[in-house]
């Protein structure tokens, strides 16, 4: 009678089986077991090199537990670099090897890979259609960011304008004729307006004399130069003369205009205010006087 063989029998006789030195009687009994036992069949196949083991979690894990300890924590420390493809040669292959067998680390790696793509896409969120409008409305009420920057940029724009000097001359002339234009304000009355009128008279005489003074000295200059200066100078003189004439013309226009639209209304306003003030001070002093009387009579 042949004895029935078990799993342990195969393990004990494994070396003999592989070396084909097992007695036939035992071989038949062992074959009968292996045919019915998946585990032993696999063991034989692996030992003969016919099959590469695929599910060795238990085996490798068991060995590591009794030797170096789990490799997972080491893999965790390298996993970000692995996902970012920053690992050098062997390290990448070793981690890849671990991931092939360790489902825990493999899942973690796949989440890390997903996050690499998904997180940057979460940088922007739409705050809704009314957001921009509400921010602009909220900032409109606040002061402009920088008054100095505003002023400086305006000035730099002004100075960069090509006709700046011409404009400056124009504005200067405008100012002179507006302030010292010889417009009569004597009618305003009062000490202050009398002083202003006197001041203005002096100035207007000066301003009115200026063209004569200028043209006289221009004639002197021209005469003294005439003998020596060539046609070029004459042409320049003609151009300058006509420029001066047109300047004089526009200055007169400007004066008429400012007289009509600015100084006359202003003078009228000043007169009006002066009258109102005088009227008020008269009524005030008479009220004071009438208040004084009862006090005096009471005593």
């Amino acid at each position, binding site marked *: 009678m042949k004895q029935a063989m078990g799993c342990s029998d195969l393990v004990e006789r494994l070396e003999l089986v592989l070396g084909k030195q097992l007695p036939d009687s035992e071989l038949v009994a062992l074959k009968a077991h292996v045919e019915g036992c998946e585990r032993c069949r696999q063991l034989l196949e692996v030992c003969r090199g016919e099959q590469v083991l695929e599910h060795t979690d238990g085996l490798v894990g068991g060995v590591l537990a009794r030797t170096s300890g789990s490799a997972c924590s080491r893999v965790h420390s390298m996993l970000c670099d692995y996902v970012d493809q920053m690992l050098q040669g062997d390290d990448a292959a070793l981690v890849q090897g671990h991931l092939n067998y360790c489902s825990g680390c493999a899942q973690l790696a796949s989440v890390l890979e997903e996050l690499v793509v998904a997180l940057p896409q979460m940088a922007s*969120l739409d705050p809704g259609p009314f957001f921009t409008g509400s921010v602009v409305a909220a900032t409109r009420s606040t002061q402009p960011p*920088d008054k100095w920057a505003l002023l400086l940029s305006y000035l730099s724009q002004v100075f960069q304008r090509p006709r700046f000097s011409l404009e400056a001359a124009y504005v200067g002339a405008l100012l002179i004729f507006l302030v010292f234009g010889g417009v009569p304000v004597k009618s305003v009355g009062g000490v202050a307006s009398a002083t202003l009128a006197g001041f203005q008279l002096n100035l207007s005489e000066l301003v009115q004399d200026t063209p004569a003074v200028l043209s006289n000295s221009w004639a002197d200059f021209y005469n003294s130069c005439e003998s020596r200066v060539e046609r070029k100078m004459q042409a320049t003189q003609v151009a300058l003369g006509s420029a001066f004439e047109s300047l004089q013309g526009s200055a007169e226009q400007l004066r008429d205009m400012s007289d009509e639209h600015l100084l006359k209304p202003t003078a009228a306003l000043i007169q009006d205010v002066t009258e109102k003030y005088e009227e008020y001070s008269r009524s005030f002093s008479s009220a004071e006087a009438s208040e004084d009387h009862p006090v005096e009579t009471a005593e």
Partner: protein
Amino acid sequence: MGADVRATGSQLNLDEVLHRCRRGDELAWESLVRNYQSRVYGLAYHYVANSEDARDLAQDIFVKVYKNLRKCPNADSFLPWLFRITRNASIDHLRRKRVRPPASQVAEMDMNSLVDHSCDPEEHWLKEVRRGLFRKALQMLTLLNREIIILKEIQGLTLEEMAGILDVPIGTLKSRSHRARLELAEKVLALSQGQGGTNS
């Protein structure tokens, strides 16, 4: 998504826009707000985890930006500067509220993500569910780890820029950033395995 923000931004020179804003140009200011509002709102949202609070906060942040435009650097460092203001305002907000919202309270679907509408609705919906899970997991991290994820992985800042914003040494950030990512992945895994029973 960030792509359309960059697209509109690239048509205009940021230095020129900033220059105009400093001069009080309302149109330039409006365009600056429009171009950066989704980044500021997105960043604030990841800190405060509440869309209403984040919207109010983002508006306050832009008012602050407007008042400080004079101190604003050139175009290259504008974004880190903007993020610094946003981050500090968000931290102040959290400090005022005194509570870190528990992960369970984080609204998952009340977001108006900037998605390309080319993809089909189901795919979009699945993506949103997944994002909700990431946000939930993010709220489970410690503040520093959360900030590292928000600034580096989500907003794409460099370690140098982050060190300036968080006032933490680069070395610390470098060693912590892998740990933070791994921790986030672990939380995501745990949350999705918790959901696994109902989903599959």
